[in-house]
């Protein structure tokens, strides 16, 4: 059976005239494969300075949902639009006036009742979003104050905000920068971290809102060397410590063996910035931190050095 949504959409979507007939059908995908949330058929508004960077792969538990839409009068007016009628008869070549009136009747029957039509929406960035949305009904009538099965919840709105929340990829700074040496402390810090909090708000205007905030808390370093070949100093704070001559070496790696036997003759150091997430805690929701990782090749040479106590600051 064909769903109601056809007419729901017909009043809102205009099929662009084609210069040449033929070719692919339907809307084209955009080149946006890094976002955690791409809302389709939704009234949810995403905002905040945590949007726009690369997603960390967080996935909402259910990538489709119903959300509140038009009241009975507005929906009926949309369905009685002339373009809806025309398309209805185009796509139902056997349809009669009686059939169309019966189709419209289901909207007329709701006029005067308190409630809303809830319509399906989905996250197109989720690999299962489209199939999930396709399995939903075209629209469901919900009396005032109610929520239909599958209706979006506050928890799911928080999940969407979390899925949309991104942080900048860390820019690794090293000292020495180009090449390190056995036993020489390699300082690590992040450059251009900018503000250390990022927020995203997901809101259904006039209905509910959810804000999550990530705060840069620490840096985690992996030397990229086999066990026993490096010592990691992890007292890094949120962004590590830029090299200071004579300063204490607290954040970085001291390589103990040269990298000449490694692929490409380098160790691949990875640095992860960890951003714990707050928001939703007051209503019982908690999220794992956002993490962003970058890597640097570190060639380590075999220069012999003499290390004395207190002299490991260069």
């Amino acid at each position, binding site marked *: *059976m*064909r*769903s*109601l*949504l*056809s007419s729901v*959409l*017909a009043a809102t*979507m205009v*099929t662009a005239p*084609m210069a*040449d*007939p*033929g*070719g*692919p*059908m*339907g*809307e*084209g*995908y955009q*080149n946006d*494969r890094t976002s955690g949330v791409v809302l389709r058929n939704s009234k949810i508004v995403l905002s905040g300075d945590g949007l726009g960077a690369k997603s960390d792969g967080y996935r909402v538990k259910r990538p*489709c949902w119903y959300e509140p839409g038009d009241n009975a009068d507005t929906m009926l007016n949309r369905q009685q639009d002339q373009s809806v009628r025309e*398309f*209805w008869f*185009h*796509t*139902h*070549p*056997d*349809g*009669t006036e*009686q*059939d169309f009136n*019966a*189709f419209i009747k*289901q*909207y007329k029957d709701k006029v005067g009742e308190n409630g809303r*039509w809830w319509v399906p929406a989905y996250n197109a960035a989720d*690999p*299962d979003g*489209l*199939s*999930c*949305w*396709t*399995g*939903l*009904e*075209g*629209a*469901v*009538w919900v009396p005032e104050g109610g929520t239909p099965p599958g209706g979006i919840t506050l928890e799911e709105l928080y999940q969407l905000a979390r899925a949309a929340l991104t942080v900048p990829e860390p820019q690794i700074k090293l000292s020495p920068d180009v090449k390190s040496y056995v036993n020489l402390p390699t300082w690590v810090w992040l450059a251009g971290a900018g503000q250390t909090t990022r927020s995203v708000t997901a809101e259904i205007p006039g209905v509910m809102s959810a804000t999550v905030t990530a705060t840069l808390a620490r840096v985690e370093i992996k030397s990229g060397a086999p066990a026993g070949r490096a010592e990691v100093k992890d007292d890094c704070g949120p962004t590590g410590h830029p090299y200071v001559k004579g300063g204490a070496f607290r954040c970085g790696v001291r390589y103990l063996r040269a990298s000449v036997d490694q692929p490409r003759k380098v160790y691949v150091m990875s640095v992860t910035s960890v951003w714990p997430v707050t928001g939703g805690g007051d209503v019982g929701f908690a999220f794992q931190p956002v993490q962003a990782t970058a890597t640097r090749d570190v060639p380590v040479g075999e220069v012999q050095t003499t290390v004395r106590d207190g002299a490991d600051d260069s």
Partner: protein
Amino acid sequence: MRAGMLGRAGLRMRPGMLGRPGMLGRAGTRARAVLAAVILGGGCLLGAGCAERGPERPFTPGGDLASSGAPADPSASAADAPGALSTPWAQTVEVTPGMTVSIEWPAGLDAEQQAMVKAFTDGYVASWKAVVSQGEDDGYLAGVEDQASRDAYTWVRGFVDRRESATGSAKLYAVRVASVTGRGAEVDACVDESGVRVTDAAAGRPVARQPAWTRPPAAVYLQVAAVRKGDDGAFRVRTYMHASYPHQRAKECRR
């Protein structure tokens, strides 16, 4: 309360739902014919305009409902095929003399997945049938709903309004069921229409200015069909999406 749905087959009505137009006293011969044409291989029935290559055909539709007059039970099409596809195979469907669609069926589809894929492939073939018949054959509308019905109708009308038809061959390959959630599923397929030529419907000759989609790289693209299983057990395309060159997903269709 769930809003009513309008389908095109002779379907059972449920409380709160509206049947399709055909069911309100008009679910007769035409409905069966439409369903048969759409459900059973886009008109490619055994011995009728079909040719297979590759391994012995492991997929056997349940008979030519259109000619036999058997009840059009949509759930009995692919779902009743004797066993899942164990090996890939190729099928060539004749849309009309002079135009074919070749379909490379993947291995490993179970009966339900076959039905999902067929909803797409049948719709694709049926749309070309509508084009070459200049809209007379409207069977393609039985396999689509919602936005997909508008897209398909507009697509066909684009040819008809310009008195244009088509000849040649189109290919569907790398077909897969990308996702299944409840009643919904996403079917992805690569399409190569570099072998299609747009013709003047009256003269039958290729038009001088062939559209861009008949030439590489635009001729090769990814077509996505979101299909939904209705209360009658049949899958219909609810939404089409696509990726065209130079989108990465379209590039992945090059071979």
